[in-house]
């Protein structure tokens, strides 16, 4: 029994992976994110070159585009779950795989499988571009630091993607999911940071700010910072919580 059920999970996983790979919108999103990220890296680098030479950190500039980059991954997550509701595909999905909790968790797993390598490549490409452009003036950074930071950035983007997928599964419609997530990540959260400096300490416990600590270089004089591990933990907790809520709703409601 356990052999056959583990085989079944592999089959469902394969199907979910197939579904994501054969969706042209997913590729379109990833390609545009990649190109846009290089363009942004170029913009940040050229802005950095105009600044004081010699004090630039390749990592700081190379990852400066992360703020925008996450939009692409938010869209990726939303597309992955909301695409089920286009053309009534959800009916086919649930008549093929009627175990809803298993199906949605496998979908998140398949999405993570795609996101992790892509996020790493995209984040690394930005840093690489910056490195090539300003290696003469920049402060030299050890290769370990670069790798840990890139892994942190990959983790952050992956968790953001999974969180967005969970919100997409909850709301089922692309537009509201996009408005909610972009509204939070790009409008509500930055405004809170600007207008309410008093609560910055609590903002650390929100998914985006906590996640930022996974890759952001830490300045030692700030007392409110979290370690990368703490940031990862909080971020992961949020993501798991939203996935759980999404699964509970998914199992309870009519398709």
């Amino acid at each position, binding site marked *: 029994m356990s052999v056959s059920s583990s085989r079944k999970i592999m*089959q469902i996983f394969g*199907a979910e992976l197939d579904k994501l790979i054969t969706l042209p919108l997913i590729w379109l999103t990833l390609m545009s994110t990649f190109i846009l990220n290089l363009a942004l890296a170029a913009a940040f680098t050229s802005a950095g070159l105009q600044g004081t030479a010699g004090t630039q950190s390749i990592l700081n500039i190379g990852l400066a585009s992360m703020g925008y980059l996450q939009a692409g991954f938010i869209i990726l997550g939303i597309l992955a779950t909301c695409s089920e509701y286009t053309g009534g595909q959800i009916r*086919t999905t649930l*008549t093929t795989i009627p175990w809803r909790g298993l199906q949605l968790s496998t979908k998140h797993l398949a999405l993570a499988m795609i996101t992790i390598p892509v996020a790493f490549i995209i984040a690394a490409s930005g840093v690489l571009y910056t490195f090539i452009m300003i290696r003469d003036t920049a402060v030299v950074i050890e290769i370990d630091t670069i790798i840990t930071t890139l892994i942190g950035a990959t983790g952050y983007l992956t968790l953001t993607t999974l969180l967005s997928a969970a919100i997409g599964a909850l709301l089922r419609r692309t537009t509201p999911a996009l408005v909610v997530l972009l509204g939070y990540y790009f409008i509500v959260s930055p405004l809170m940071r600007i207008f309410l400096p008093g609560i910055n300490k609590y903002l650390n416990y929100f998914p985006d700010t906590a996640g930022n600590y996974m890759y952001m270089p830490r300045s030692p004089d700030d007392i409110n910072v979290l370690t990368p591990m703490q940031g990862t933990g909080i971020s992961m907790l949020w993501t798991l919580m939203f996935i759980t809520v999404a699964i509970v709703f998914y199992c309870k409601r009519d*398709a």
Partner: protein
Amino acid sequence: MLTMNNLVKHRGNQEILSGISFRARPGRVTGFLGPNGAGKSSTLRILLGLDRATSGSALINGKTFAELHNPLATVGAALDGFGAHRMRTGRAHLRWIARAAGLSNSRVEEVLKIVGLTNAADKRVGKYSLGMGRRLGMAAALLGDPKILILDEPVNGLDPEGIRWIRTFLRERAQSGNTVLLSSHLMGELAETVDDVVIIKHGTIVADGTLEEVIGNHSTLEKAFFALTSEHAGEVV
């Protein structure tokens, strides 16, 4: 064998189904008839585990749909609409379904040939005509070579050739001992295909029996249908 036991479904304050009970037996084609909005699709959706019944049960060989060990090989279902994402190609759509059930890609080519979509398999589903979409739905239903077929308006949008194909195909399936349940509102078509008839109106069953029993004294199935479903029985006859 498909068994509905006293299905009740509420949506908001509305009672969509109020106690639906009937069976679809192996070796027979069962026609599920009713006017628009009578509750045909809701019943099929509950049977397929898409919607939840407020009370009562819908069982497939004594199990609910989610309890089936290998759903695709047990039940093939084609509900209305394409059931596929518009941006995917027909072949890619069938392939992920096959993958989920552990079937090979050669089976995908087989069903594409059965429903006559081989030439359109690499087109996006969004570019399909209504009839091609129905054929794609049928292909998905046939993938696992199931013993039970559940089809919602299968001939809707098909050309005359397609309708004839469906009719002979379903007869053959039933004759080799399979169970077929199809909903429709095309009386003439249904009368030539089905063995048993279940008629639903406002969420309740108003007739259930063999084709002959339901037609009874009326000259055609259509007349019997109107007699049973019109607001003032007998008026339209």
